[in-house]
C-alpha cells in the first residue's frame, strides 16, 4: 500500500519544473554554477538578480538554446536537457525574448497564428492543394489566435503588420504569440523592459490573467515593484548561483539579497 500511495502522493505534489545542479560555462566563465530550484504548477515564479547573474543564460538553457554541461531539467517528470528548442516547445514550454524576436513583416494575427503551429497538423502537400480539412484548420487557428489576442487586449490590432506597432504593443504580441501555443509553462524574459508605468501596470494584470488561465509563469524581471507585487515566489541569482529564495516578503527582508542586489532598506509595495 505504502508504495502505491507514495507514488500518487508524488504525482500530486511533484513540481511542474525541477532544475537540478544546472551548470553552464562560456570559455571558463561559469554563467550557471549548479543552479537548483523547483517551480510548482500554477505559480508566478520570478527570477531576479544583478546583470550578469545568469538569468537569461538560465532561460536559454531551459528552452534548449544552450547545452548545459551538467545538471538536469525535468518538466512534468521528463527530462528536457538535450532536446532541441522545437521539441521542448512541443512539451509545453514556450517563451518571450528580452530583445524582440517578432516576425516584423507579418501581421499581428499571423504572428499569433505561428504561435498556434503546434496545435495544427497541416503539412506542405495538403497546404499546397488547400484541401477542405486545411480550410477548416485555418478557421480554427484564426479563432485560437483571436482568443490569445483578446486575452492580451490586442484584438483591434490583428490586421496590422507587427513591425508598425509601438514598442509596448510589440512586447505584448510576443506574449500573445507564446500563449497561442497553449504552453503549461511560459517563460517571460524582461517583459517590462522599455515599458512606461501605465504599460507596466497593464502588464501586471496580464500576467495575473495568464496565471488565472492555468499557465505557470517563470519571470525574469528587473522592475522590482512589478516583481514584488505579481510573484508568488522568488529566486535570487548572483554569479550563477542561487543566493536566496522565498516569498517576496522573505526576499525583501533578506540581508544578503539587499546587499547584493536590492541595495539599502527599500520597501516595495506588495
Amino acid at each position, binding site marked *: 500500500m505504502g508504495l502505491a500511495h507514495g507514488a500518487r502522493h508524488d504525482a500530486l505534489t511533484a513540481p511542474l519544473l525541477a532544475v537540478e545542479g544546472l551548470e553552464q560555462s562560456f570559455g571558463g566563465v561559469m554563467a550557471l554554477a549548479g543552479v537548483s530550484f523547483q517551480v510548482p504548477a500554477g505559480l508566478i515564479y520570478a527570477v531576479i538578480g544583478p546583470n550578469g547573474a545568469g538569468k537569461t543564460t538560465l532561460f536559454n538553457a531551459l528552452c534548449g538554446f544552450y547545452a548545459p554541461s551538467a545538471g538536469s531539467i525535468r518538466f512534468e517528470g521528463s527530462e528536457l536537457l538535450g532536446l532541441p528548442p522545437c521539441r521542448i516547445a512541443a512539451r509545453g514550454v514556450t517563451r518571450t525574448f528580452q530583445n524582440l524576436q*517578432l516576425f516584423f513583416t507579418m501581421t499581428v494575427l499571423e504572428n499569433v497564428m505561428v504561435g498556434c*503551429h503546434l496545435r495544427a497538423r497541416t503539412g506542405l502537400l495538403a497546404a499546397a492543394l488547400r484541401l477542405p480539412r486545411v480550410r477548416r484548420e485555418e478557421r480554427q487557428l484564426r479563432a485560437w489566435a483571436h482568443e490569445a489576442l483578446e486575452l492580451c487586449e490586442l484584438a483591434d490590432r490583428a490586421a496590422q503588420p507587427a513591425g508598425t506597432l509601438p514598442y509596448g504593443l510589440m512586447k505584448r504580441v510576443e506574449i500573445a504569440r507564446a500563449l497561442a501555443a497553449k504552453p503549461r509553462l511560459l517563460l517571460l524574459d524582461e517583459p517590462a523592459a522599455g515599458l512606461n508605468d501605465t504599460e507596466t501596470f497593464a502588464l501586471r494584470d496580464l500576467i495575473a490573467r495568464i496565471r488565472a488561465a492555468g499557465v505557470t509563469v517563470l519571470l525574469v524581471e528587473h522592475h522590482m515593484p512589478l516583481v514584488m507585487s505579481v510573484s508568488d515566489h522568488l529566486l535570487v541569482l548572483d554569479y550563477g548561483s542561487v543566493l536566496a529564495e522565498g516569498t517576496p516578503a522573505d526576499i525583501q527582508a533578506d540581508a544578503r539579497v539587499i546587499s547584493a542586489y536590492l541595495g539599502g532598506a527599500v520597501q516595495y509595495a506588495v
Partner: protein
Amino acid sequence: MRLAGFFALAAGVIALPVLFPNNYFVIVVGIAAGLHVILAVGLNLLMGYAGQISLGHAAFFGIGAYASAILTTRYAWPALLALAAGLVVAGVIAWLLARPILRLRGHYLAMATLGFGVIAHVIMVQATHWTGGPDGLTGIPPLNFLGWSVNNDLHGYGVVAAAMLLAIWLSLNIVDSRVGRALRALRGSEFAAQMLGIDTSRAKTQVFVASALFAAFAGSLFAHQQGFVSPDSFNLTVSVELVTMVVLGGLASTYGAACGAIALTLLHQGLVVFEDYEMLIHGALLMAVMIFLPQGLFVGLSQAARWAWRTARGMTP
C-alpha cells in the same frame, strides 16, 4: 477575395492568344515567360519566404529536362511518365542535398548551391553516354495526354499556361498556410520560430524540395516543348537569371516573382534589336530598377499605379 489576382491573371493568359491570333511572337515568348514564371515562383518559396538562397537552381531545371529527354529518347517512356520520373529524381536529389547544405547560412549557402549547380552542369556536359554531351539530346517527343498530343505552338502555349497557373495557385496556397507562415517565421527569427515548435531544419528541407520540384516540372515541360535539350540551357548564367527574376519582381510575393520572370523574359526579347549593346542596357535597367524600386517591380509598380489612380481621381471635379 483571396484569389482575385489569380483569376485576373488567368483571364489575361487566355485573352492573349485570342487578341493576337496566329502571332508567333506572343505564343513563343509566352511559352518562355510561362516556364520562367514556374521557375521563379518555386525559387521564391525558398528565397523570398524562407530566406535561403540557391545559386544552383538551374540544376533542378536541368534534371527535370534531362530526365524527360533521356527516358523518352533512350527508353521510349511515355512523356507524362518521364515528367513524373523527373519530379521524383529532382525531389530525391534535393532532399539528400538539403540537410547538409541548409545548415549553412548566407555566403556559405550561396557557395554550396553554386557548387552544386556547377557540378550538375559538368555532369551534363561530360556524361556523354547519357546526356549526349555538349550537343545535347534531340528528338524528344511532345507531351501526350491520353492521345492528345501537344504538337503545335498554340497547344504548347495552353499547356505551359495551365502549368504556370497551377504553379502560382500552389504557391499562393502554401504561403497562406501553416507551412507558409512557418517559413516566413523562420526567415524573421529562426530562434523564435523554434521556440514556437517549428522544426526549422525540417521546414527548410521541405521548401528546398518543393522549389526543386517546381524547377524540375518546368524543365520537363521545356524539354517536351522544345524537343531538344543541351547543357547551355542549365548553366550558371541561368541560375543567376532566376535569382534576378525573384529579386527584380520583389522578394516574398508570388505575383512579384511571376512579374519579375515575365519582365526579364520580355526584356531579353526586346533588347535583341540592340545587338551588341544588349547586355549593357540589360544591366543598366536592372540597376535602375533596384535603385528606384528597391522592393521590386511588383510593389513598385502597384504603388505607382495606386498613386496615378488617386491623382487622376483627384483631378476630376
